[in-house]
Every structure is written in structure tokens, then in C-alpha cells.
């Protein structure tokens, strides 16, 4: 049994206490270790993704206990892809946090950052629903600390909302887990997939309630309308690098929906038939519309970006909820794109904020480093709004193409195209007010121009934009990889047999006690 797959969880779990204990008062040493840890994560994640790319499913049994009894970590194409995405995003965000000095505006940024990564990695790799809950809590408790990093009344208040909403979400998650355990007697995902199939169609009340509760929990994480209310305030008030890292957190919800509703409750399962097409799709389309409306209506630049995140999550969820192999491939392509685009936009908003009195969309004297920042905003906005030539456009094409053979084609086409148009209008309005009109507002006497963002900040945002451009250039190979990934998801038998049939302690009941 190879131990590599647990390293994405272990490495941050070791780096974080080291930073707290040994490098508490030395921001320089903290930075070195934090960056080294994340670079190490990228290497490990790339190795795992390479290992999984030929369809191998890596299983790790904690304590060598066999699957339904012990907790397992499973690395297939989807989980390793998400792990790699997280590691790459984390590096860019970390570089920005260092470049802009955000990490020095409060204590323990780097330690919390590493704990957050540990939770996210664990959530992507685990093969057990209760363990998923535990990793959700790990990432949430770190995110509470990050969310209120560097303090301030407005931020604390938004932090209270964020924490309370997520506490209620966690309680709901426990209710869902309790009902699943009561109905099936297991919480291992592979084992669940088999047992749910064996449930008598006449006695499905409990398992249907559990499936809906679980969907609600993941929808809260993915900020699906009408469960999105926590997102705008918390993301807008969170420190910019934290908001950028949170771009992956909504994807944790999307990942969990893909995983659970392709393996445990697949779309052709009679017990939960209609849940995806009747409810998820409608909620996703409404999210897309609400996101677009918010982009147009936002009075501040940071709110505009948060609503564009809701819109892009709506887009991801529309594609996921079609539940065909093609649509899931399109959803994965769009998910990667939307993570980088959202993170880049949050960081750019912070660049604007650093030399502007506030983020209201009114004409003010031009910001420091306006040329570069506006170029970056222009590119990121094109990506987010889904205009050619960047990957947002390709992603949208894939989404539309995937929806073509389904019944929902008219709705998907209508909402996606109209919301794209509204997004374009909203972003161009914001961009022209913040960057263009600024030229016509004279600078007041004695008003000094603040220092432009540091080179490292530009490098980090440029890196994200560069990744988006790579995502566009290599769209062909990436999309074919996503297609094989989604084929693996819709043929879960190898996953299930790997998890359940690998021998370990207790795998044969005859062996007796230990």
C-alpha cells in the first residue's frame, strides 16, 4: 500500500503546527515554510494526478482496517484533479498574500492557511461520508479564523453571519448522516452505493429524506440559490487572499454533489429519481439568473464579484444537474476555469481597493498602477463573463453543447445566454466607471498617490490569468481528460470493488478479534 495519497492531508497538518510553534514571531520564516509546503503539495498532487490519469484507483486504508469498518482515502481521477487544482490555486493566493502584506496584518495567517488546505484536501480524498463531515469542519474552522483575519467591525460582523450559517449547515449535515446510517447501516460511500441499490422501492421514505438533506448541505456549500445568502457578505468582507482561496470552497460543495449523486444516488436510481432534474436544475438556473442580476445591480465592486461567483456556481450546477457524461465533463472544465477566474477577480478587487477610498462604483481619481490593474481586470472580466477568446467562452460552449440532447435545452440556452449578456453589461459598466471615468476626475490638492501593488502581487494575479490562458490553449487535451474523468464517474464499479475488496484487518469476519 502506497502512502503517498495521505500526504496532501499530512503535509499541511505538519507545516501548520510547526509555523505556530516554532516560527510564531518570524513572518519571514513563516512565509518560507508556508510557500515550501504549498510547493511540496503541488508536486505531490501532480504525482497523484499522474498516477490516477491512467484510470488507476488508489486506496489507502487508515490503520489497515478493511473498507466498511475503517476509514478509507480514495484517489481517482476526479479527486486528484481537485487536489491539484487546490494546490495550484493555493500557491498563487499565498504569493499574493505575501506580496500585498495581507499575511502580516494579523496573526497566524499561514498556520490557518495550511489547516484550511488540510481540510480541503481531506474532503476531496476521503471515501467516507462521516469523514467528509469531519474534513468539512476542519476546513470551516480554519476558514473562520481566516475570514476575520486582521479584524475590523464590519469583517467581524460578516464573520458572525458566516460562522452561524455554516454551523446550521453542519447540523443539517449530521441530520443527513444520521438518517443515512439509520437506513443503510453504513457511511462508506462505496458500501452505500451497493446498499442503496438494494433498498426495496416501496420503503424509500427515509433514504429519500436523507438524499434531499444531503443535497441541501452540499447546496449550502456550493452557494446555490436560495441557500446562497451567506456568500456575498462573507466573501466581500473577507481579506482578499482568503476570498480568493474560498473560490475553491464552493467547488468542494460541487465536488461532493458530483461524487455522491453519481455514485450513491446515480441519476437512474429509482429511489431518488427526479431529484436532480426537477429540483437541482431549477435551483441552478435560478442561481445563474440571480448571479447575473446581482452583477448588474451591485453598487460596489466587491459585491459585483461575489455575485459573479454565485452566477458561475449556478453555471457549474446547471451542467452538473444534467447528469450525463458529457455534461459532467463540461462542468469539470468550467469548474477549473471558474475557480481561477473568481480568485483572480478577488485579488484584482483588492489591488483596486488598496489605493481607492472605497469600492463604490462611482468615478474617483485613478488608482495607483491603473494601467496594469485595469488590463488584468479586463482579462479576468472577459474570462468570468464568458466572452471569447478565453476559457469562459469555451466552457459555456461545452455547457450548451452538453445540454443540447436533453429535455431542458430551451431553458438552459435561454438562461445561460441572457445571463451572459447581463454579466457582460455589468462588468463593462463596473470596469468603465472604475478605470475609464477615473481619468476625468482630477486629483485633489495634497492627495498623494499611494504605492502601486508590489511585483509579487502582479505576479500572482498574472499567474492566475496565465493559468486561464493555458486552460484555453490546451482546452482540447484538458477536455478529453475531463471526459475520461466523467466516464470513470459514471462507471463506478472499479471504484466500489477497489474499496470493498481490498483486504485489510477485519476483512474476513472469521479472523475474529484482534
Amino acid at each position: 500500500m502506497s502512502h503517498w495519497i495521505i500526504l496532501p492531508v499530512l503535509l499541511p497538518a505538519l507545516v501548520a503546527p510547526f509555523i505556530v510553534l516554532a516560527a510564531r514571531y518570524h513572518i519571514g520564516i513563516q512565509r518560507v515554510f508556508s510557500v515550501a509546503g504549498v510547493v511540496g503539495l503541488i508536486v505531490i498532487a501532480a504525482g497523484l494526478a499522474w498516477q490516477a490519469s491512467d484510470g488507476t484507483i488508489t486506496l489507502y486504508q487508515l490503520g489497515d482496517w478493511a473498507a466498511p469498518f475503517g476509514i478509507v482515502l480514495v484517489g481517482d481521477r476526479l479527486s486528484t484533479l481537485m487536489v491539484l487544482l487546490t494546490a495550484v490555486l493555493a500557491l498563487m493566493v499565498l504569493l499574493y498574500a505575501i506580496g500585498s502584506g495581507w499575511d502580516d496584518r494579523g496573526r497566524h495567517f499561514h498556520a490557518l492557511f495550511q489547516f484550511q488546505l488540510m481540510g480541503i484536501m481531506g474532503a476531496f480524498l476521503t471515501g467516507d461520508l462521516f469523514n467528509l463531515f469531519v474534513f468539512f469542519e476542519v476546513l470551516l474552522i480554519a476558514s473562520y479564523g481566516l475570514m476575520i483575519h486582521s479584524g475590523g467591525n464590519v469583517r467581524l460582523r460578516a464573520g458572525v453571519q458566516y460562522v452561524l450559517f455554516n454551523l446550521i449547515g453542519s447540523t443539517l449535515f449530521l441530520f443527513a448522516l444520521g438518517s443515512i446510517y439509520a437506513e443503510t447501516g453504513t457511511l462508506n460511500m462505496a458500501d452505500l452505493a451497493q446498499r442503496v441499490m438494494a433498498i426495496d422501492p416501496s420503503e424509500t421514505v427515509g433514504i429519500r429524506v436523507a438524499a434531499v438533506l444531503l443535497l441541501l448541505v452540499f447546496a449550502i456549500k456550493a452557494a446555490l440559490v436560495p441557500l446562497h445568502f451567506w456568500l456575498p457578505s462573507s466573501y466581500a468582507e473577507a481579506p482578499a487572499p482568503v476570498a480568493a482561496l474560498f473560490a475553491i470552497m464552493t467547488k468542494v460543495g460541487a465536488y461532493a454533489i458530483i461524487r455522491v449523486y453519481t455514485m450513491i444516488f446515480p441519476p437512474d436510481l429509482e429511489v431518488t429519481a427526479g431529484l436532480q432534474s426537477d429540483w437541482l436544475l431549477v435551483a441552478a438556473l435560478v442561481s445563474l439568473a440571480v448571479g447575473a442580476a446581482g452583477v448588474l445591480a451591485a453598487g460596489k465592486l466587491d459585491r459585483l464579484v461575489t455575485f459573479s461567483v454565485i452566477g458561475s456556481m449556478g453555471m457549474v450546477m446547471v451542467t452538473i444537474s444534467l447528469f450525463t457524461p458529457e455534461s459532467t465533463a463540461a462542468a469539470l472544465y468550467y469548474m477549473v476555469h471558474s475557480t481561477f477566474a473568481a480568485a483572480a477577480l478577488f485579488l484584482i478587487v483588492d489591488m483596486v481597493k488598496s489605493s481607492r477610498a472605497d469600492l463604490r462604483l462611482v468615478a474617483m481619481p485613478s488608482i495607483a498602477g491603473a494601467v496594469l490593474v485595469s488590463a488584468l481586470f479586463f482579462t479576468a472580466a472577459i474570462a468570468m463573463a464568458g466572452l471569447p477568446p478565453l476559457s469562459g467562452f469555451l466552457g459555456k460552449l461545452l455547457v450548451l453543447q452538453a445540454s443540447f440532447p436533453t429535455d431542458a435545452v430551451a431553458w438552459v440556452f435561454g438562461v445561460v445566454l441572457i445571463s451572459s449578456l447581463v454579466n457582460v453589461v455589468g462588468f463593462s459598466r463596473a470596469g468603465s466607471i472604475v478605470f475609464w471615468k477615473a481619468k476625468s476626475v482630477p486629483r485633489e490638492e495634497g492627495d498623494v498617490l499611494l504605492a502601486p501593488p508590489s511585483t509579487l502581487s502582479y505576479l500572482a494575479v498574472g499567474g492566475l490569468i496565465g493559468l486561464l490562458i493555458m486552460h484555453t490553449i490546451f482546452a482540447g487535451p484538458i477536455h478529453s481528460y475531463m471526459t475520461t474523468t466523467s466516464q470513470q464517474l459514471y462507471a463506478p464499479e472499479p471504484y466500489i470493488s477497489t474499496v470493498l475488496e481490498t483486504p485489510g484487518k477485519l476483512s474476513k469476519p472469521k479472523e475474529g478479534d484482534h
Partner: protein
Amino acid sequence: MELLVASAIGILTAAGLYLVFRLRTFPVIIGISLLTYAVNIFLFASGRLTIGGAPILQKGVEGVIYSDPLPQALVLTAIVISFGMTAVVVMIALGAYLGGDDDGVNDPVEPAGEGDKP
């Protein structure tokens, strides 16, 4: 016993939800605590209710009453996590209350600098 446990879960959940909807931090935190108590009992009951059963399956003995050990482990984990989370939220809420002199949970109706149109 089923009636007692079920009604306890129901009453705790209802009271918890009512307090959560008060939208002021102190009642909301108490409400969430009640909700976590409810969910802990719920998790405990998900392994079926037994009285006086040891959590051990004995080999070769049929029909013996035993209690499912897994939900007990789940409840322990859930208790620890919810306890820690409650402590965190109390601290953050206290900070927000002392700083802003307001214990509402919603966004303020008209915060400074927001919503002013040019």
C-alpha cells in the same frame, strides 16, 4: 422510549429553530446549541434504541441484545466538534458586539458607505 426520544428531538429542534430565527447573536447561539443537542440524540438513535445492551457482538450467540457502537463514536465526534465551534462563534460574536455595539445577525440596514448612489 421511542416516543420520549422522538419528542425530545422534535422539541429541541423546534426550540432551536425558533431561537435561530430571532436573528440576534445570543439567542441564535443558544438555538444552535439546542439544534446540536437534538442532532446528537438523533445520531444516537440512528443505531436503534436498546436498553442495557453491550456494544459487542458475541460469536455464536443469536438473538442477544446489543447496541450499535458506531453511532456512539459519531456522537462523540459531533459533540467535540460542536463544542469547539460554539466556543469559536461566541468569541467572534462577542468581538463583533463589543466592536459594533449591535448584536444583530443580519446586515445593518444602511451601513456606512454602502448603497449610496452617486
